[in-house]
């Protein structure tokens, strides 16, 4: 019971101190809006293209929302030593890091639904397979957050975290099938797509929204799960090695 009091307190503190701040709320709304608008205009195929764009825009909203916030909630707190206060608390490192990342996961999931709400006014969403879409969004949120965590614990400064994040984020936009089908990529870079967890999540989203998907859903969900666990364990190992040195 005591440990869950601490767990909940960390989530609430992060939400109040970081996520529910006006700049982050506006980021969560403006960013997906901008991406949707950009690809909508670029496609030039009218409102019919909305459903094709939706999986990519949802994913990009999650990816940028989660990874950006973790560089603040983790790297910044580590930089000003307030993270030590959490390390001194009598809760396990696993639970502590789950609490620290839960806010980002929730932020990512909420961000993902901003383009869905916009799309609801512009297109018919009745054909969407929600039972696939919702778990896929949650898993993409978790995987992106843990990717952000892995980056945040590998560096010392906030600007390093942001730079290092871009090293992953921007290639993912082009390589993971967000807006360009993986099969249309040059064959020598196609293998790279399958290194990133987002590829599997986007494929499920495409399947849920348009019915087109490359891989078996069960395989995609399983691989996303493996990436989540792997990234979390790697991050914990880095914290133990680098921060409790």
């Amino acid at each position, binding site marked *: 019971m005591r440990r869950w009091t*601490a767990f909940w307190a960390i989530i609430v*503190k992060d939400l*109040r101190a970081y996520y529910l701040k006006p700049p982050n709320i506006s980021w969560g709304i403006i960013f997906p809006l901008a991406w949707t608008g950009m690809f909508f205009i670029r496609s030039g195929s009218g409102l019919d293209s909305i459903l094709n764009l939706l999986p990519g825009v949802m994913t990009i909203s999650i990816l940028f929302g989660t990874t950006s916030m973790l560089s603040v909630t983790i790297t910044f707190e580590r930089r*000003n*030593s307030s993270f030590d206060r959490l*390390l*001194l608390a009598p809760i396990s490192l696993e639970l502590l890091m789950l609490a620290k990342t839960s806010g980002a996961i929730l932020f990512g999931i909420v961000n993902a639904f901003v383009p869905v709400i916009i799309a609801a006014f512009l297109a018919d969403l009745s054909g969407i397979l929600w039972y696939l879409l919702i778990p896929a969004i949650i898993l993409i949120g978790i995987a992106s957050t843990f990717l952000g965590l892995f980056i945040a614990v590998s560096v010392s400064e906030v600007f390093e975290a942001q730079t290092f994040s871009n090293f992953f984020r921007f290639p993912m936009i082009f390589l993971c099938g967000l807006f360009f089908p993986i099969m249309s990529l040059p064959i020598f870079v196609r293998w790279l797509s399958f290194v990133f967890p987002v590829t599997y999540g986007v494929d499920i989203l495409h399947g849920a929204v348009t019915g087109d998907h490359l891989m078996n859903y069960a395989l995609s969900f399983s691989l996303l799960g493996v990436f989540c666990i792997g990234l979390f364990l790697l991050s914990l190992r880095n914290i133990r090695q680098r921060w*409790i*040195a």
Partner: protein
Amino acid sequence: MTTSTGTAAFTVSGLTKRFGDVTAVNDISFEVKQGELFGFLGPNGAGKTTTINMLTGLARLDAGTINIGGINCTSNPKAAQHLVGVVPDESNLYPELTGFDNLCFCAALYGIRKGEREKRARQLLDTFGLSDAAGRKFQGYSKGMKRKLTFAAGIIHQPPILFLDEPTTGIDVASARQVRQIMADLHKQGTTVFLTTHYIEEAERLCERIAFIVNGKIVRIDRTENLLKPVQGKNMLLLTVSDSGEDHVGSLASEFPYYTFDSIIEGQIRVQSEDTIVIGPLVRLMEDRGIQVTEARRHRPSLEDIFVEVTGLEAGFMQKDKERPMGGGNR
């Protein structure tokens, strides 16, 4: 003053920590008894904070064992974290939260329920004189207020063992006095306090036992009264002279064999005796020899003199790069 029992609050044995080629803490062993106020005294970089970090689970040990409250924490540093409170050497609360919210959050980390944590937060804000600033964000606090709130955050879960890392460094005289008073009160209430400081006078006033740590090694550990024994009843005179001072120690000793002379600091001669030191003949002799005496000051021998003797360091070395807020503090 003494409220400690014979039972150990925590023991460390052979504690060692290396950072690359540098051995920050080198095979130290000691025991702190329950209810004891134990001082860990040393200059900057001596290994005080590294020792606390190892004791509280913020740093891994390279060698040695730690036992806190009967729990072996060597391989599982988290095992005894519920027993300890830590006040770090730098204020590390959350700038975006108010003073009240910071304290409530710190209490929640120890599983304290909402009603109880709010009650304790209000009590501590009152104790530290911060009630009026309870609703202000931490980032707007002055340095002294930040240190006091950080102290309050370290004790909000009422830990039986408290680690204080330089709690009065860099704060104003009034805040330092208040912090020292609270330390003394906690000690009276039975809390085991492990205090690291480079303020010798602070350690002398507050601590029951003191360890001197230099370059990662404990060079002396004893009860404060035992440490002070060699200088008790001694008279001391400090003469500030125009040249090095060291050159004249030998000739003065032959002229005044019943006094002891030395020169630890450049330009200063220290005269010690069991009897009263008569200043006139000393100064006259020196001036006859062309040595200009610019100041003659009687000095109450203190722990500082013992520290200088034991460690070979000048007391001034302790204040390097730090402010010194001591100013008639009370307990």
